[in-house]
């Protein structure tokens, strides 16, 4: 099998699955989940062919808009990494779903959309042109919308789905504009043509293009200030959260930035913008995560924060570092989400204040979660440690001191919330409300889980534990792949440092970043230890920003306010313009013509003398006209 064919199959298989699942559902609904897993497996197996250094093969292309747009596959390490992450994590999520989603309604829709989601991500990554990239980019948007709103009877889910779609769409128009401007100037959508032609563009145009790309990435990767959709997306089934956070959607933005970094490099201010966006997002996400009490929301904000790091890395020109962190993050965040899913599945709430001492009931989950959290905060020798330090190092090298400061504060906060969450959930005191139905009504539970009358939380089914273990293992080992990864990058002519795993260790431990990040972890640990005092302080003083932070720093309020103003404006237009002015014109026309009609009918007096008077007057007028 050639690489081209494998690449094609890689995303065609999920698509075929997405198509087949609803059809099979007509005949054999029971088979559907397994079928989906099978397709996921097939796709992730194909991925091994791509790793195996197969010959590239003849390019496979398709004329989509004949004469204007021909799409093909691009298989380089930059594009393969997100694709592989998508298929593998996707596969694990599918397995996990077997247990997690058991007994839900509309499973066919669920599995079809998950497969489509995976296919969309793979397609986006493997596209050799901007248009196909955008196409699949949008397919993912559609899938995320549908999957976030999967429990559509819950108004919060329905709203969250809509919000995700709308917010990312704002970014998408930027991306679309950028793509079209490039295409109009170069006559093609292909990456290679456009990167070549971009240098010839005027700076303002190029600035617009760069801004469009950044906007697109900001929307998709939930960067500041469009990060608001991601926390709300927690209304999705937890499996979907894992998929969005680890495998598909949010990675796309980072991938895009990495992909278009040649264009960004041409616009001086754009990289600075990207740095600051990344750093601010990293800090903001960490801060918000630190003040959240909803387990999934913490993880969501954490994703926002980690994506900030990746964006920051792109901003300092370290695409490789960003992709490396993307890889690590996908693994540990996937792990964290799946653990969180297991927890939520077991006890039926997402509020960490109602959790505690779960270690006794689900040790495997607790340990794997701990591993994930340690990777998140960057404990040495876990994958997160290497990749994050790599980024910090690149930031230092890039001389972006301002963003670096923000990133370090964020790192401290990361350590704090990672520790806090882990300990509160698994080792804290069990709360009395623990086993009771304290669930807010609005939160939709998986049907498989009915709140137990017994005093024990659910056991975690094996098909949910297996993916956890696999991912936990990967947290320890994945960084070892840095060697082959960087080799592949260099081999494909992409900018990457030549590193082997050993060199990575040496580099990391000898860098300034190592000291910085250790300090940050230490500060985080300190904060964690002082959390009781902090809590008391916050409780007593209630500083305003704390309340703001617990409400997402007011971004949601701002956007809601804006949306309301638009709606008010619409109401106003409807009331005033449509009802009064436009209808008014119609009514006035009717009124005026009727009035004129009545007036002119008054001329018709019915009196014969009047009739004769008109005749006489007309005669006088006509003769007058004639004679003069």
């Amino acid at each position, binding site marked *: 099998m050639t690489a081209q064919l494998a690449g094609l199959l890689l995303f065609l298989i999920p698509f075929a699955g997405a198509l087949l699942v609803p059809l099979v559902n007509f005949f054999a609904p029971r088979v559907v989940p397994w079928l989906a897993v099978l397709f996921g497996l097939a796709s992730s197996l194909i991925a091994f062919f791509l790793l195996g250094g197969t010959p590239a093969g003849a390019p496979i292309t398709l004329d989509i808009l004949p004469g204007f747009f021909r799409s093909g596959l691009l298989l380089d390490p930059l594009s393969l990494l997100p694709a592989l992450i998508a298929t593998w994590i996707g596969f694990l999520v599918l397995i996990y779903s077997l247990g997690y989603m058991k007994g839900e309604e509309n499973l066919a829709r669920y599995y079809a959309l998950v497969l489509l989601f995976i296919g969309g991500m793979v397609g986006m990554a493997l596209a050799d042109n901007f248009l196909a990239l955008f196409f699949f980019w949008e397919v993912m948007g559609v899938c995320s919308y549908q999957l976030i709103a999967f429990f559509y009877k819950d108004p919060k889910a329905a709203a969250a789905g809509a919000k995700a779609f709308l917010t990312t769409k704002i970014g998408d128009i930027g991306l679309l504009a950028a793509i079209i401007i490039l295409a109009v100037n170069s006559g093609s959508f292909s990456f290679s043509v456009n990167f070549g032609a971009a240098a010839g563009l005027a700076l303002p145009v190029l600035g617009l293009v760069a801004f469009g790309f950044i906007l697109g990435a900001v929307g998709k990767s939930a960067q500041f200030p469009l990060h608001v959709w991601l926390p709300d997306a927690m209304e999705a089934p937890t499996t979907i959260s894992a998929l969005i956070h680890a495998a598909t959607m949010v990675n796309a933005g980072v991938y895009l930035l990495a992909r278009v970094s040649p264009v960004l490099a041409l616009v001086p201010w754009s990289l600075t913008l990207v740095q600051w966006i990344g750093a601010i997002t990293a800090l903001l996400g960490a801060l918000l995560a630190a003040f959240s009490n909803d387990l999934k929301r913490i993880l969501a904000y954490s994703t926002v924060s980690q994506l900030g790091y990746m964006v920051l890395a792109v901003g300092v020109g370290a695409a490789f570092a960003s992709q490396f962190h993307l890889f690590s993050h996908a693994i540990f965040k996937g792990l964290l989400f799946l653990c969180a899913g297991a927890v939520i599945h077991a006890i039926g709430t997402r509020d960490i204040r109602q959790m505690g001492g779960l270690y006794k009931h689900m040790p495997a989950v607790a340990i794997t979660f701990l591993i994930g959290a340690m990777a998140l905060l960057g404990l040495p020798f876990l994958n997160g440690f290497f990749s994050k330090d790599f980024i910090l190092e690149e930031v230092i090298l890039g001389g972006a001191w301002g963003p670096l400061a923000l990133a370090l504060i964020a790192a401290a906060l990361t350590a704090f919330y990672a520790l806090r969450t882990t300990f509160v959930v698994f080792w804290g005191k069990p709360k009395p409300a623990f086993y009771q139905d304290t669930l807010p009504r609005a939160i939709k539970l998986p049907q498989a889980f009915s709140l137990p009358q017994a005093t024990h939380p659910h056991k975690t089914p094996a098909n949910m534990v297996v993916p956890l273990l696999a991912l936990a293992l990967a947290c320890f080992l994945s960084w070892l792949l840095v060697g082959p990864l960087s080799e592949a990058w260099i081999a494909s002519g992409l900018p990457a440092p030549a590193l082997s795993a050993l060199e990575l260790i040496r580099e990391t431990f000898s860098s300034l970043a190592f000291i910085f990040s250790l300090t940050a972890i230490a500060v985080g640990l300190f904060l964690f230890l002082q959390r009781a005092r902090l809590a008391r302080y916050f409780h007593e003083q209630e500083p305003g920003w704390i309340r703001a932070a617990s409400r997402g720093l007011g971004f949601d309020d701002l956007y809601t306010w804006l949306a309301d103003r638009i709606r008010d404006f619409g109401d106003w237009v409807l009331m005033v313009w449509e009802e009064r002015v436009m209808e008014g014109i119609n009514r006035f026309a009717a009124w005026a013509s009727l009035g004129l009609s009545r007036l002119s*009918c*008054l001329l*018709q*007096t*019915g*009196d*014969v*003398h009047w009739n*004769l*008077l008109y005749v*006489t007057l007309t*005669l006088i007028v006509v003769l007058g006209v004639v004679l003069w």
Partner: protein
Amino acid sequence: MSVNLLPFVFVLFGLGLFCLLTRRSLVKLLIGLELLGKATTLAIIWAGVVRGTPATTQSIALLVISIEALVVAVYLALVYAFHRHNQSLDTDDMRRLKG
């Protein structure tokens, strides 16, 4: 010819119109119409005199007069019917149709 009857024709015509405009009796309306008719008949005859073909115009005038008689006959029949409905000959009663 020293006399010009045309101004007289116009005066007569004007009188007829004046009569039509101001008199509110159907019979007086008839008189107004007749005045118009006489003015035109006179004009026709005068035209023959001016053109030196009095025979032509007089024959025309005779025809016109007989046609007028027809019109008057229809008019009177209608006035008769009108009187039967309204017991009056006042044009003020002739305002059923308007607007």
